[in-house]
């Protein structure tokens, strides 16, 4: 019968191992054998059972770090297999394409030529769902964003090379984390720089964990965590603008003209939208349309397709995002609204803030924010 201390250690190890159950069991069996043999030897040398147990366990070090060391080779193997299968699949696709092009009858349309969107597909045409592609990319982005917001990471890294630490997070999230080597080289940072970080409580999001790891190597300000097409890119801070369209019709549909007029009148706190802490640190008092900020310029006059409620929402987003906007500061990002769709051109970081604000607005909207809610941090989270 194994010592209780050994079993506690092996349970903790198994809990931290990112392996299949059978593999976890095999690792535990192997280490149990070692621990028991070591215990017998140490006791034969005159140690007490308690001392021998402690010594045997100490020789394995921390269970979480050990689990990380065990997990890496297995995941490296899986990754190699994935790459091999991907290459095989790509080869098959290319071969099929070449063969199809070669044998395709001349009078028929090209198999992978011009995309034809039609409601009544005819034989010989390959219908490609044009709208599906951007949706899929967006879904992927949302999926990765959700994983980055999860707070179930728990690890103890002691002098772990930075790139191994990133690999661990990547494996835990099941999302590839790609490092832009050039950015690190240009800043004289060695990717094998050891980092020390312990997250035991599970209270920190994966994104914060990545930021903390970057901080360990003084790259917090220089490197950005960017979600690309299906992976997380650790790259240079991108100040270039990208355009995204936000569908805000759900937020705008219940706003009446009266509410917007009231907001324009500058009555304290009245209005549909209120953000408490929605912009993260520094949003502080929050915003109410025409609230404590004094009803800043919400006009009913609209351009073609732009609703007054839309203008009001844009105002909220601009204020809460706490950054520069072209129409306010003469430099910065741009924001326009058409038919409930708000188009924003700004940096990736600001887009993240906008997403966060919209998420909180939606949460507040769903819960039924009080009609005359004061502009305080009631919805702070």
């Amino acid at each position, binding site marked *: 019968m194994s010592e209780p201390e050994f079993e506690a250690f092996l349970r903790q190890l198994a809990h931290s191992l990112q392996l299949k159950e059978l593999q976890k069991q095999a690792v535990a069996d192997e280490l149990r*054998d070692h621990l028991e043999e070591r215990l017998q030897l140490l006791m034969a040398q005159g140690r007490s059972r308690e001392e021998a147990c402690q010594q045997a366990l100490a*020789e*394995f*070090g921390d269970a979480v770090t*050990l689990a990380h*060391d065990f997990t*890496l*080779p*297995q995941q*490296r193997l899986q990754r190699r297999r994935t790459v091999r299968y991907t290459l095989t699949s790509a080869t098959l696709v290319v071969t099929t394409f070449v063969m199809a092009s070669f044998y395709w009858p001349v009078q028929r349309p090209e198999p992978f030529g011009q995309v034809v969107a039609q409601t009544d597909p005819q034989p010989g045409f390959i219908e490609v769902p044009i709208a599906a592609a951007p949706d899929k990319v967006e879904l992927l982005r949302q999926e990765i964003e959700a994983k980055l917001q999860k707070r179930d990471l728990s690890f103890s890294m002691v002098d772990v090379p930075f790139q191994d630490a990133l690999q661990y997070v990547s494996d835990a999230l099941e999302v590839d984390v790609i490092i832009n080597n050039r950015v690190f080289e240009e800043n004289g940072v060695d990717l094998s720089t050891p980092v020390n970080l312990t997250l035991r409580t599970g209270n920190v999001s994966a994104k914060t964990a990545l930021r903390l790891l970057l901080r360990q190597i003084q790259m917090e300000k220089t490197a950005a965590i960017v979600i690309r097409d299906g992976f997380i890119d650790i790259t240079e801070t991108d100040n270039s603008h990208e355009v995204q369209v936000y569908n805000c019709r759900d937020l705008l549909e219940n706003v009446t003209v009266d509410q917007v007029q009231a907001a324009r009148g500058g009555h304290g706190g009245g209005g549909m939208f209120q953000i408490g802490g929605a912009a993260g640190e520094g949003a502080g008092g929050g915003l109410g349309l025409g609230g404590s900020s004094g009803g800043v310029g919400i006009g009913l006059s609209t351009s073609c397709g732009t609703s007054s409620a839309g203008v009001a929402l844009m105002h909220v987003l601009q204020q809460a995002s706490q950054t520069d906007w072209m129409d306010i500061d003469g430099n910065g990002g741009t924001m326009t609204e058409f038919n409930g769709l708000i188009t924003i051109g700004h940096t990736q970081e600001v887009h993240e803030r906008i997403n966060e604000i919209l998420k909180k607005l939606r949460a507040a909207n769903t819960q039924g924010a009080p009609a005359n809610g004061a502009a305080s941090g009631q919805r702070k989270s």
Partner: protein
Amino acid sequence: MSQRFGPDLLRGSLDLMVLSILAGGSTYGYDLQQRVLEASGQLVQLQAGTLYPLLHRLEADKLIRSRWEDSTGRKRKWYEITAAGKQRLSAQTAEWDRYVACIQAMLAPIRSIVTRPV
């Protein structure tokens, strides 16, 4: 008393040590650890927390393979070197010999200085 080696020096040669022990016959983790200690004249004490992940990595790289036995009354995992492992050992041994010769040649001019009593 002999001084043990620094971790940086050991890091690049642990695979070679483990493969060389396994080239002498199959064994299990604890025994392998003791054999390394003996073969190194008590100078290299591979910590268990280093040894087992290393064995798993070598197995994932197909340089060694394992099997389970329970002849001792408890489950025990035995390792043996593969053909690929022997090839790697041979190549690494040759590389190691070249490296040692290179370092010795570099150190030869200063050997008289560093060995001079203070």
